[in-house]
C-alpha cells in the first residue's frame, strides 16, 4: 500500500563512505580532521624551534634527535603529507564547487559579520601551501637555501637564511597568512566536527584568535631575532 520513502529515493547508489567524500559536509569534516593534525604539527614545530632561544646546541641536538629514527621521521612526514593532501584537495574542490554555485556574482555584496580571515581562507591556504614547498626546499632539502646549507645544522641554516632579506619577507608574509588561516580555521574546525555549543562559541572564537596570533608572532620572532642579532652564530 504505502511505499517506504527511503527505498524509493535511494534504492541504490554509492556507499556511505563515497557519499561522505562527495558531500560538502564530509569534505569539511576531513578538512577539520586533517586541520587538527596540521595545527598540532604547527604548534609542535614552533615549540621545537623555540629551543633556539635556549641555545644553539640545544636546537641542533633536537634536529639530530628527530633524525635519529628514520622510521619515525618518515611516518610523521607521510602523515603530514597525507593531511596536507587531503586538506588541500578538499579545500580546492570545495572552492571550485562554490564558484560554480554562484555563476553570476552580485554587482555589490554587503559583508555583514564574516571576518576577513573567513573570507580569505583559500588565499591564505594557497600562500601557506606555496610556502611549505619553499620552506622544505629551503631548510630541509637545502636546494633553495639563500646561504650555504649544512645538513642538520638547524640553527646555522636558520641564521644564514634569515640574513638575506627575501627569505625573511617570504617567511613573514607566510606566517601572517598562517595566522589568518588559523584564526578562522581553528574556530571552524570545531564547527565542522560538530563540537559546538552556543555557550562555548565565543570562547572557542577567542581561543582560536589567541592561538593564531601566538603562532604567527612566535614564528615571526625567529627571523626578527636573527635580524636584530638576538640570535647569532
Amino acid at each position, binding site marked *: *500500500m504505502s*511505499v517506504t520513502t527511503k527505498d*524509493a529515493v535511494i534504492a541504490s547508489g554509492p556507499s556511505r563512505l563515497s557519499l561522505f567524500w562527495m558531500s560538502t559536509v564530509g569534505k569539511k569534516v576531513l578538512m577539520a580532521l586533517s586541520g587538527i593534525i596540521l595545527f598540532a604539527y604547527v604548534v609542535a614545530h614552533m615549540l621545537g624551534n623555540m629551543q633556539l632561544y635556549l641555545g644553539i646546541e640545544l636546537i641542533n641536538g633536537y634536529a639530530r634527535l628527530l633524525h635519529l629514527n628514520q622510521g619515525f621521521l618518515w611516518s610523521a612526514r607521510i602523515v603530514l603529507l597525507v593531511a596536507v593532501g587531503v586538506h588541500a584537495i578538499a579545500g580546492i574542490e570545495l572552492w571550485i564547487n562554490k564558484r560554480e554555485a554562484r555563476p553570476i556574482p552580485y554587482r555589490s555584496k554587503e559583508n555583514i559579520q564574516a571576518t576577513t580571515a573567513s573570507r580569505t581562507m583559500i588565499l591564505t591556504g594557497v600562500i601557506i601551501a606555496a610556502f611549505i614547498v619553499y620552506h622544505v626546499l629551503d631548510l630541509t632539502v637545502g636546494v633553495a637555501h639563500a646561504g650555504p646549507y649544512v645538513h642538520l645544522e638547524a640553527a646555522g641554516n636558520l641564521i644564514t637564511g634569515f640574513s638575506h632579506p627575501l627569505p625573511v619577507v617570504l617567511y613573514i608574509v607566510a606566517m601572517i597568512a598562517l595566522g589568518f588561516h588559523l584564526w578562522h580555521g581553528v574556530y571552524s574546525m570545531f564547527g565542522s566536527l560538530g563540537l559546538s555549543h552556543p555557550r562555548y562559541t565565543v570562547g572557542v572564537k577567542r581561543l582560536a584568535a589567541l592561538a593564531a596570533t601566538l603562532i604567527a608572532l612566535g614564528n615571526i620572532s625567529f627571523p626578527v631575532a636573527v635580524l636584530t642579532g638576538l640570535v647569532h652564530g
Partner: protein
Amino acid sequence: MALDSRIPGGPLENKWSERKDHMKMVNPSNKRKYTVIVVGTGLAGGAAAASLGELGYNVLNFCYQDSPRRAHSIAAQGGINGAKNYQNDGDSVYRLFYDTIKGGDFRAREANVYRLAEVSVNIIDQCAAQGVPFGREYGGTLANRSFGGAQVSRTFYARGQTGQQLLLGAYQALERQVATGQVKMYSRHEMLDLVLIDGRARGIVVRNLETGKIQSFIGDAVMLCTGGYANAFYLSTNAKNCNTSAIWRAHRRGALFANPCYTQIHPTCIPKSGDYQSKLTLMSESLRNDGRIWVPKKKGEQRPVDQIPEEDRDYYLERIYPSYGNLAPRDVSSRQAKYRCDEGLGVGPGGLGVYLDFSEAIKRLGQNVIAERYGNLFEMYERITGENPYQVPMRIYPAAHYTMGGLWVDYDLMSNVPGLFVGGEANFSDHGANRLGASALMQGLADGYFVLPLTVGDYLASGGIKKADTSHAAFKDAEREINTRLDKLLGAKGKRTVDSYWRELGTILWDECGMARSKESLQRALTKIPVLREEYWKNLKVPGSGNDFNQELEKANRVADFFELGELLCADALDRNESCGGHFRTEYQTPDGEAKRNDAEYAYVAAWGWKGENQKPELHKEPLVYEKIQLATRSYK
C-alpha cells in the same frame, strides 16, 4: 433543487462513527487506480493530499505559490483548539462543539461542528507525532492558552507561529508523498476552471504561471481547498494572491455558493497608513489576553496618550462585556471598535483606530514576560509603524480577515456537484456566521486529515465514474473559454490598472457591506458594482502577453472573479434580513446595539446557484435543524 446534506441518523455523538462504519471502501490494491485532484496546499489541501497519498491514491496537487509550504495557513499566529481537557478546566468535545456553534451565532450545521470538535483531539495527536514544536510545560507535556470567545484553556500553540508550524507539518507529510511519487506536485499552477463530464467533477484546467501554458488535468474526483475570498475587500489580512477564482469557477459550473455574506472582520489589525497600502497586517488576538482596549472618553482628545488619566479612558469592552471583557468574540470586538470610531473617539490618522494597551500588564508581569509572550508581535508592530508598543499603546483597527461562507457541501464535504469536494475555508460548513479564534486551523486539518480522505473513498467506491481523458470535448471547451477570457483581459488595452479597479471594488464592499450593512448600503453596492465591472472589462490595461510569466494577467483574472463574487456577497447580505455573527444589518439590532437574529425566518443556509452573467442568482435553502442544542441569544456580557 433539493439540498441533501446527507447527515447520518442517530444521536449527534454517534453520527460520525455511524457514517464511517457504513462507508463504501476502496480495496487497498485498487486505490492506485484512482486519481484525486487537490487544489491548494494549505492545512486542508496539504493534509488531504498527503493523507490520500499515504492511502495509496494517485494525487495531483496544485498551488499558485512557488512552493506548497507558502499557502496562507502559514500566517495564522495564535493557535489551534483541541478538546483535550489537559488543563482540567472542564473542557470536553461537547463544550468545544457548543462554543463553536454559539460563536457561529447558531448558523452552522450541528452535525459538522460536532464532528469537528470530535476529531480536534486526533489533530493534536497527529501534529505532535509529526514533530510540530507545540509549546510545552517543564514536565514535557503540552501547554495551552486561552483564546477569544472561550472560557476554557484549550488552545495549543507554537509561539506566535502556530499556523506556520502546523502547515510545515502537513507540508513535510506532503513532500514525503511527493518523494514516493504518490503525489505529483504542480506549484506555480493556478486553477482557472473546473471540468464536468456527465455531471461529475472530473478535472481542472490550469495555467502554468511560469510559462503561461494552459493545461488540462483529469481525475476521478476534484478537491478544492483554496481558501477564502476576503481579498474581495482589497485590503484584508489575506496574502496578496489569495483569490476566489477556484471556487468561483466551480460555482459558475454549478456548485452552490453558501452564505457568502458571512465575512469576518478581525479586531486586532494594524491600521491603514495611506492609499498605497497593499494589505493589512493582523496581530494575533492572543494579544487581547494581556492588552486592554480603550479609547479616550472625550472627542478630539489632544493630550498625548500617556497623559490621558485613567478616568478619561473608556475601556469599552470591559465596560460592556464584564464577563468576557477584552476577550469578547471577534465580530463583537470589531463592531464595538467601529462604533467608537463612528462616534469620533477613534485614535491615530483619520480617527480609524483604538488603543490596545499593555502598560498595566507590563506593570503586573514585567516587560520580560510580555516580551516572551508577544515579543515577535511587538517587533512586527514596531517595524511597520515605527512605534514601540512597550512604551506607547498599540493602535489597532478591524480588517477583513476570514470568510465563513464558501461552496455548499454536504456532511461528506462534497458539493452538490458529484465528485467535487471542498475543504477548509473554501467550504461554508463549520463556522456559521462567525468563526471563533483558533478554529480555522482546526477545521482545515480536520477536513484534510480526517474527513476528506475517507469521504472521497466512499465516493470513488460508489462507482459510476466513466473512463475519459483530457481530449474530451468538455476539456477542450473549457480551455477555449479560458483562452478567450485571457485574450479579452489582455485585449481591452484601456487606461486603468487592475489595482485601481480592485481598490475601488474593495472600497465599495468595505463601505457598503463591511462591518455593518443596511438595505440602502447594499442596494447602493449592487448598483455600483455591475457598472464598475462593465467598465473593468472595457477599460482595463494589462501589459504583456498570455504566454509568459505575467503577474498582472494573473491578478486581472482573479479580480474579474472578485467582481462577480462581490455582487453575490451583497445580494446575500441584502436577502438575509437579520443580524448574525459577522453579518450585521443595522436595521436588525437590539436597543444596546447587539446583533438581532431572526431564527423563525432565517435559520437556514442560503446556497446560491449561478444562473449566468447579469442574471439573478437562484436561492436554495437548507434549513438548519438543531437536534441537540437550544437556540439561544448569543451573549458575552
